[in-house]
C-alpha cells in the first residue's frame, strides 16, 4: 500500500508530506509507464534508432575524415611538387583548405551537407567554400537522414506527448483523479509528481544516446588536434539543451492534459502543436527570415566585390592607383626609376594590391555573414513558443556544425591565404631581380599547409545567447502553463 493511501493529508501538511505525495504519484506514473507494453516497445525502438543513427554517424564521419586527411596530404604534395616558377604563379595555383570534421557531427550533422567542404586559396581572390554534399544527395535526401539530432528533435517529443497526454485526463476519465484529490493531495504536488516521472522517463530515453555519443567521442576524437574535455563540455551542453527541450514538452503535455475535456482532445491538441513545432514553424520561420533579411544573389555579391576591386590596380600597370603607388614608392626610396629600387617593385605592388583586397573581402564577406546572422536570429526568436527553432541552432552550435562555425573556418582559411600571398610577395620583393625570377621547392616547402584549430565550446556559448534564452523561455512558459492548468484542475 502506498504512503498516500495511509491517511488523508492535512491542509497544513509539512513539506515532507508534500514530498511524499509527489514521490508516490511519481512512483505510480513510473509503474504505469513501465507496464504499458506499447510505450515500452516504442521507447525501445527509439533507443535502437538512436544507437543506429549514432553508428551511421560514426561510420560516415570516419569515412569523411579519412577522405579529408588524404586530400590534405595530396594537396600538400601537389603544392610542394610544383616545378620552379615565379612565386606569384604558384600563388595563383594556390592551395586548398579542407574543413576538418567536428567530432560531434556524428550526433548532429547540422549544416555540413549544405556548406562546402573545401576552399581554394588563390591569389587576388577570396573564394566561397565549394562542393556541398547535399547537391549530390538527390531529391529524396531532402527528407533527411537518420541522425541522433533528427530523432531527438522530432520523434522524442512525440514520445513524451504519448507518455503524458492522458496523465490527468485519463485519470479524470477513470475516476482516479477524484479519489486522489479527495485524500487531500494538492494539484501542484500531483503535477510535480507526474512531471518528475515524465522527466525521469526523458532522462532514461536520453541516457543511452548520451552514453553512446560519449563513447563514440572517446574513440573518435583526435586528441592531438582537439581537446577531449572541450568535446565533453559540448556534449554536456547538448544534453542539457535536449533535456530542457523535452522537459518543456513534458510540462506542456501535463498542462494540456489537465485542461482538456478528455484524453482525445488533449492528444489532438498536443499533436497539432508537435506538427507545428516540428514541420511548420521551421519552414515558415525560414520563409520569414528570407523575406525580412534578404541576402544578395551570387551575381550581386560578386558584382559588389568586383566594383570595389576595380578601384585597386591588380595587374593593370596603367591604373591610376598603380601609377600613384609607383610614384609614392620611388619618392620614398629617393630614386627616379623602378630599376634603381633596392627591392623588387612588382613584389611591392602585389603586396599593396593584396592589402587593398583584404579590406574589400572583409567588408563584403562580413556583410554577408551579418545577413546570415540576422536570418538566424529571426528564425530563433520565436523559439520560446516553438522550441525546435531555439534548440536547432544550439544543437548545431555545440556540435560545431552551424553557419558561425563555418564562418570561423572560412575566416581562418582566408587568413592562411593571406599568409601565402604575403610570403610569396615578400620573396619577390627581396629576391626577384627581374621578370624571369623563379623560385624552387624550398619556398613551396617553407609555406605551410592550412592547419585549422576549431574554437572551443565558449565560442558556441557566445554565439548562442538568443537561442539559449528562447529555450529557457520555452521551459518557463511550459512550467507556468502546467502550474496554471493544475490550479484549474477539475476532478470530473
Amino acid at each position, binding site marked *: 500500500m502506498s504512503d498516500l493511501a495511509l491517511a488523508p493529508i492535512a491542509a497544513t501538511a509539512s513539506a515532507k508530506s508534500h514530498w511524499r505525495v509527489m514521490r508516490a504519484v511519481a512512483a505510480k506514473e513510473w509503474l504505469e509507464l513501465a507496464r504499458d507494453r*506499447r510505450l515500452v516497445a516504442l521507447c525501445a525502438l527509439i533507443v535502437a534508432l538512436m544507437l543506429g*543513427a549514432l553508428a551511421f554517424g560514426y*561510420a*560516415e564521419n570516419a*569515412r569523411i575524415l579519412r*577522405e579529408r586527411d588524404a*586530400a590534405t596530404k595530396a*594537396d600538400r604534395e*601537389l603544392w610542394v*611538387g610544383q*616545378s620552379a*616558377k615565379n612565386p606569384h604563379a604558384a600563388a595563383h*595555383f594556390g592551395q*586548398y583548405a*579542407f574543413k576538418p570534421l567536428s567530432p560531434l557531427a556524428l550526433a548532429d550533422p*547540422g*549544416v555540413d551537407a*549544405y556548406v*562546402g567542404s*573545401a576552399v*581554394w586559396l588563390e591569389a587576388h581572390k577570396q573564394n*566561397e567554400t*565549394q*562542393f556541398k*554534399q*547535399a*547537391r*549530390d*544527395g*538527390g*531529391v*529524396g*535526401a*531532402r*527528407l*533527411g*537522414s*537518420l541522425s541522433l539530432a533528427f530523432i531527438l528533435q*522530432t*520523434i522524442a517529443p512525440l514520445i513524451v506527448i504519448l507518455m503524458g497526454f492522458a496523465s490527468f485526463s485519463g485519470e479524470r476519465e477513470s475516476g482516479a483523479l477524484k479519489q486522489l484529490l479527495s485524500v487531500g493531495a494538492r494539484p501542484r504536488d500531483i503535477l510535480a509528481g507526474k512531471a518528475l516521472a515524465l522527466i525521469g522517463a526523458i532522462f532514461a530515453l536520453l541516457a543511452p544516446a548520451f552514453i553512446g555519443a560519449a563513447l563514440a567521442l572517446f574513440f573518435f576524437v583526435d586528441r592531438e588536434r582537439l581537446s577531449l574535455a572541450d568535446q565533453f563540455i559540448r556534449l554536456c551542453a547538448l544534453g542539457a539543451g535536449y533535456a530542457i527541450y523535452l522537459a518543456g514538452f513534458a510540462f506542456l503535455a501535463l498542462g494540456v492534459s489537465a485542461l482538456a475535456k478528455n484524453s482525445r482532445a488533449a*492528444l489532438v491538441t498536443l*499533436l497539432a502543436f508537435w506538427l507545428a513545432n516540428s*514541420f511548420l514553424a*521551421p*519552414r515558415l*520561420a*525560414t*520563409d520569414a527570415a528570407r523575406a525580412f533579411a534578404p*541576402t544578395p*544573389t551570387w*551575381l550581386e555579391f560578386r558584382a559588389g566585390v568586383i566594383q570595389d576591386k576595380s578601384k585597386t590596380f591588380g595587374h*593593370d600597370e*596603367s591604373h591610376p592607383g598603380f601609377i600613384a603607388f609607383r610614384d609614392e614608392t620611388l619618392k620614398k626610396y629617393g630614386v627616379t626609376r623602378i630599376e634603381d629600387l633596392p627591392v623588387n617593385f612588382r613584389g611591392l605592388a602585389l603586396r599593396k594590391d593584396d592589402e587593398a583586397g583584404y579590406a574589400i573581402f572583409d567588408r563584403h564577406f562580413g556583410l554577408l555573414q551579418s*545577413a*546570415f546572422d540576422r*536570418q538566424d536570429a529571426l*528564425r530563433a526568436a520565436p523559439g520560446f513558443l516553438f522550441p525546435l527553432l531555439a534548440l536547432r541552432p544550439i544543437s*548545431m552550435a555545440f556540435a560545431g556544425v*552551424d553557419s558561425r562555425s*563555418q564562418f570561423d573556418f572560412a575566416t581562418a582559411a582566408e587568413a592562411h591565404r593571406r599568409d601565402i600571398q604575403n610570403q610569396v610577395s615578400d620573396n619577390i620583393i627581396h629576391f626577384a631581380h627581374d621578370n624571369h625570377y623563379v623560385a624552387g621547392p624550398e619556398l613551396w616547402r617553407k609555406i605551410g599547409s592550412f592547419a585549422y584549430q576549431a574554437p572551443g565550446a565558449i565560442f558556441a556559448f557566445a554565439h548562442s545567447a538568443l537561442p539559449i534564452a528562447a529555450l529557457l523561455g520555452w521551459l518557463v512558459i511550459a512550467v507556468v502553463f502546467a502550474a496554471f492548468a493544475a490550479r484549474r484542475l477539475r476532478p470530473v
Partner: protein
Amino acid sequence: MSRAMSSAFFAGFRFEARMMRRDGAIWFALLTLAGVALFALAMGSARVSAQQAAIAAARADEMQRIANLQKTLGQLQEGDAQGKPAPEPPPFRDPRNPTFMGGGPAAAVAALAPAPLALVAIGQSDLLPPAVRVTTNSKDSFLFADEIDNPANLMSGATDLAFVIVFVYPLVILAFVFNLLAGEREQGTLAMTLASARRPGAALAGKLAARVSAPIIAMLLAVTVGVWIFAGWERLASPGFAALLVLVLLYGLFWAALAAAIDGLGRSSAFNALTLIGAWVAITMILPAAINSLAAFAHPAPSRIDMVLAARAASTDADKARDASLARYADEHGGGKPAGGSQEMTLRRLATQEAAFQRVEAIVAEHDAQLARQRGLSDRLGYLSPAYLTFQAMADIAGSGETRYRAFLDRIRAFHVDWREFFLSRAKAGAALTAEDYAALPKFTQADEELSAWAPVGLAGPLIGVALPALILAVFAWRGFRRCGI
C-alpha cells in the same frame, strides 16, 4: 453493384456528408488544408519569379561582358587601322586572346528556366543554380558554383506544395477516417447504423467514402485553383498537371485505405489514433531517413575533392611535361630557347587546361556512376515509403528533380565541347578573335520542350508504388468493415 447495394452506399454517403456539413471542426480542417496548400503555391510562385530573375540577371551580365569585349576589340582594331595602336592590354584582358577569353571574360551562360509547374516543389532547385557560366576550363571550375544562401535556410527547407501533400494532407485524411467505426462503436450508434441498412457493408462504405472524399476533393480543388491563380490557366491543360492530380488522388487514397484498414481491426479510437500516428511517423519520417542513410552507407557519395585534386595534379604534371619538353628543345638546339613570352604562356595554359579537362571528365563520369548507384538503391528502397515516392514524383512533375537537371547537365556537356572547340581551335592556330568570331559565339539555348511542354517521364513506377499498397490496404479495410462487430 446491385441496386440495393448502391442505394445503401449512397444513403450512407449522404448521411455522413450531412453530419460532416454540420461539424464546424470539419470545415475548419478542410479550409486550413486548402489555405496551407494555396499559401505553399504562392510561396512556390515567388520562388519561381526569383529563379527567373536570377537567370535574366545572368543573361544580362553575359550580354554586358560580351558588349564590353566587342567595344574594346573595336577600339584596338580602330587604333591599328589608324596607325595609332592602343597600348597592348595584358593577355587576360585582351579580347583578341581566345585562350583567356574563352576561360572567363566571354563565358557563356547556360540556364535552366523553371518548368511550367515549378511552383509545386522546390526539389533540388535551391541547391542547383539555375544558371551556369560555361568556360573552356575543366568542369570542376564552373559546374559546382553555388547560389548564395544561408545554409540553415537550405537545411530547414521551404514551404512548398510537396511538403503540404507529403506531410500535412495525410494527417487531415487520418483525422477524418481513423475512428469511423470505432467512434460509432464507442458512442453506441454503430448497432443502429448496421441495423438500419439492408446492406450494412455498403452503408459503411458510403460513410467511409464521404469521409475520404472531403479532404481529397478539398486538396484537388485547392491545387487546381492555386495553379490557375499562380501559374496560369494554360498549365491546367498540361500532362504534368494531370499527373499531379493523379498523384494527389492516389496518395490520399493510400492514407485513407491505411486508416480504414486499422479502423477495420475493431479496436478503440485511441488504439487507431496511436497506431496511425506511428504509421505516419514511420512512413513520412523514419523510413525516408533510413532509406537515405542506408543508400549513403552502401554507396557513399564520391568526394568531389578528388576531382579538384585530379585537375590540380593534371595541371602540375602538364607544367612539368612542358618544362621537360622545353629542356629537351634546349638540349637539341644547343641551348636555344623556343618561342617564349605570351605564346609560351598560351601553350602552357592550353596544355594544362587540356590535361585537367581529360582527367576531370573521367572523374566526373566515375562520380556520376557512383551517384547513380546510390540513387538507384534509394529509388528501389523508396518503394517502402509512399511518402518518399510522392515527394520524388512531385519534384519530377515540377521539373526540379534529378531527371530534368541530368538532362540539363548532358546538354551542358555537349555545349562545353563546342565551346572549347570554338576557342581552343583558334588558340592552337595562334589566331586572334575577331568581331565576326564574337558575333558567331556558340549560344546555349534551352530546348523548347524544356520550356513549355515539360512532360514528366518515369512517373509510372512511383504511381504504381503508391497505388498498389493503397489497393492492398483497401482489401484489408473492406474485409474489416464487412466483419465489423458491435
